[in-house]
């Protein structure tokens, strides 16, 4: 039974990933990505990591994927570069497969095991405690908050509508060049 579900979720995740790479339209790719996310979430559930599974669905499916779809919606389509992307995607997947096989072939090595592994119950509470325990993950947890703050402020700054900005030193030359092309256009 468990194996069946494992195969189901794993298949979903892999099929989704392959489809993401191979789909002709970006929107389709995005939806295929959702399959991957859901499959991974399912795997988490099978591993007993319920908190992680829910977070996966909430953040990846609910947040990131929606964001991607919005991004696609708001971007004018451009069909010229698809071939190049497919080549890259193809070689990238080849690389990934090669690496995976290499690990598998070489895995006469014993993976680390926890001997006294009892079936986990609800994981949210222990995770929360662990995150705030000084000898646990306190520092990484706090650092993540800084990372997010930086990302937040940075994205707000970049997205903020452009006021009459005099740009930095290095770009003066570029501005001049741009002006040059504009004038050429005006002249033509």
């Amino acid at each position, binding site marked *: 039974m468990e194996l069946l579900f494992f195969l189901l979720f794993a298949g979903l995740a892999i099929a989704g990933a392959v489809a993401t790479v191979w789909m002709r339209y970006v929107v389709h790719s995005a939806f295929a990505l959702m399959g991957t996310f859901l499959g991974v979430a399912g795997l988490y559930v099978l591993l007993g990591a319920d908190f992680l599974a829910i977070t996966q669905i909430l953040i990846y499916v609910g947040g990131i994927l929606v964001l991607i779809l919005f991004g696609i919606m708001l971007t004018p389509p451009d069909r010229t570069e698809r071939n190049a*992307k497919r080549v*890259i995607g193809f*070689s*990238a997947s080849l*690389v990934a497969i*090669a*690496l995976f096989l*290499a690990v598998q072939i070489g895995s006469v090595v014993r993976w680390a095991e926890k001997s006294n592994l009892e079936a986990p119950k609800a994981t949210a509470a222990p995770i929360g405690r662990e995150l705030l325990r000084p000898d646990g993950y306190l520092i990484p947890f706090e650092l993540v908050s800084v990372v997010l703050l930086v990302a937040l402020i940075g994205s707000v700054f970049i997205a903020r509508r452009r006021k009459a900005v005099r740009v930095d030193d290095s770009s003066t030359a570029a501005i001049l060049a741009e002006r040059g092309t504009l004038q050429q256009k005006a002249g033509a």
Partner: protein
Amino acid sequence: MPFLPLIPLLPLAGALACGLLHLQVLRARRHHADARPAEGLIGTIATLAVAAAFALSLERFFALAGSSGERVLTWRATDVWIPTGGPAIPFGFRFDALSSVMCLVITGVGALIHLYSIGYMKGDRGFARFFTYLNLFVAAMLVLVLADSMPVLFIGWEGVGLCSYLLIGFWYEEMKNAEAGQKAFVVNRVGDFGFLLAMFAAAYWTGSFEFTGVNSAVEGGKLATWQTTVLGLLLFVGACGKSAQIPLYVWLPDAMAGPTPVSALIHAATMVTAGVYLVIRTHPIFDVSPIASGVVACTGAATAIFAGSMGLVARDIKKVLAYSTVSQLGFLFLGAGVGAYGASFYHLVTHAFFKALLFLGAGSVILALHHEQDLFKMGGLRRALPGSYRTMWIGAAALAGLPLFSGFFSKDEILAGVLGGRPVFGIPGLNWVLYAVAAATALMTSFYTFRLIYLAFEGEPRGHEHPHPNPTVITLPLVVLAVASVAAAVLGLPFGISHALQHWLEPVIGEPQGHLSHSAEILLLVGSGVIALLGFAIARATYGGGLAKAEARAAARPALYNALSARWWIDELYDATVVRAVRLTSFIAGLIDAFVIDGLVNGAASLAKRGAASARRMADGSTQTYALWFGAGMVVVVASLVLLR
């Protein structure tokens, strides 16, 4: 503060002072484009700095002469300047028989040339800059000769190279000059590479960076013969670069682009002898390796005759002297290669005097003719510039080796050393071949030297400009150097009359190897004298009547020339034999130069260029390309870790 470090520090301080004054001039030029440097002040500071270093060297020299025992003064700043894990690199100076004489020559000739430069550079916009470089050069050269370990020597070695390069390109507004500077710099890098390798190899094999340590290890037989051979050859590659030997000579003739005092000080009297100095300093290595010393001797001889033949037909007065310098440096290496270190060093000293004299004299002529350097446009300057004429005649006589002038004795000692010295490559017969080459070179030397004198000073004026007389600051150094060119003879007269220099150097270079009998010495001496006089006679017969126009014609249209014209038959002969032969030689040399040497250099350059182009192409700005490289790189990294054993 001990005296020894002050010797290089004084010129360094002078350089700093001049540099600051130069900055001040630059600042003033922001407001007045024609702001002039305080020439008197700068010249005085620079000259005094070197003169003081000379005085100090003299004081130390007498202290050294008065000392007993090993005859060496040392100074150590630190025993562990650079810790390497292996042998530590110390920082210190060593004032012994060899370096003391070098110091005296450098500062003595240097001070005179500084004095001369005050007159020569008068009114130049870069007056202060010139003296900054010149002082800096003297400081670096002193570090070079005073160094007691190879890394410290390397500091001076690079320092003089830098100054040389800066001064060759001193008038950088002309592309030609800047390129000449660049050429010198690049060619010297090849030599430096050899020297660096030698330094590391020496430290690795002998466990010491110091000359005493390396030398005693070699003398103690700690190194296998192949090791000393490798060491010697690498050192010689370094020496070749600095001292312009085949195949690294190409930069020196071009280096004449610099102001003439620079040619006199750096490219004749001091810096270019650094290679010979290095060989003498590390002579035990060459003593035990017949291959290394043989290569030194043969390269020296080949360079001597090759460069000498090029000097025969050069038209530029400074080029004649430049080829002559290369040729004489070849002599020095020949002497060092056969183990006649004393003779080689003796000739080094006398050469410093008379070649500096000749260059300065040439400079005075050039200055008087408003920067005309073509010999064929000179002539008849004897009356207009009597001071230059007389002193240059003495210099020429010394260079040609006319009897009783200093060059006569020193050159003869090298020739005697070639015959009496150790067999080259261990084959005794080769010494005779080398002797023949050296004798032929001596003949050429004598000929082209007096050709220069006759073309420049005798006959009718061919130039269109009126020469103006030279000031005292210019003639005074000429006179002093002329006296020195004659008087230096007493450092080493034959038949044991005076072996002052040889004796003085014995703590460093040991007893001279091999002796010739007195009768052989007399024979050689007479032979040398005859050779020199013969060259003089040919030159006089050819050019004594002001025949430069004929030479010009002969050089331009040799085939059409009327061979029966009795009056010119010497020129014809000359044209038919010497010029042809030389043409052929220089054609072959040109081919070698163009295809082998240039080919190597250009090949390396174009390889780098092509590599650069493809390296740039790899970064074409496209994200996809980058991604491909990234992925490929990742696969290669992982695969090599997985697959390699």
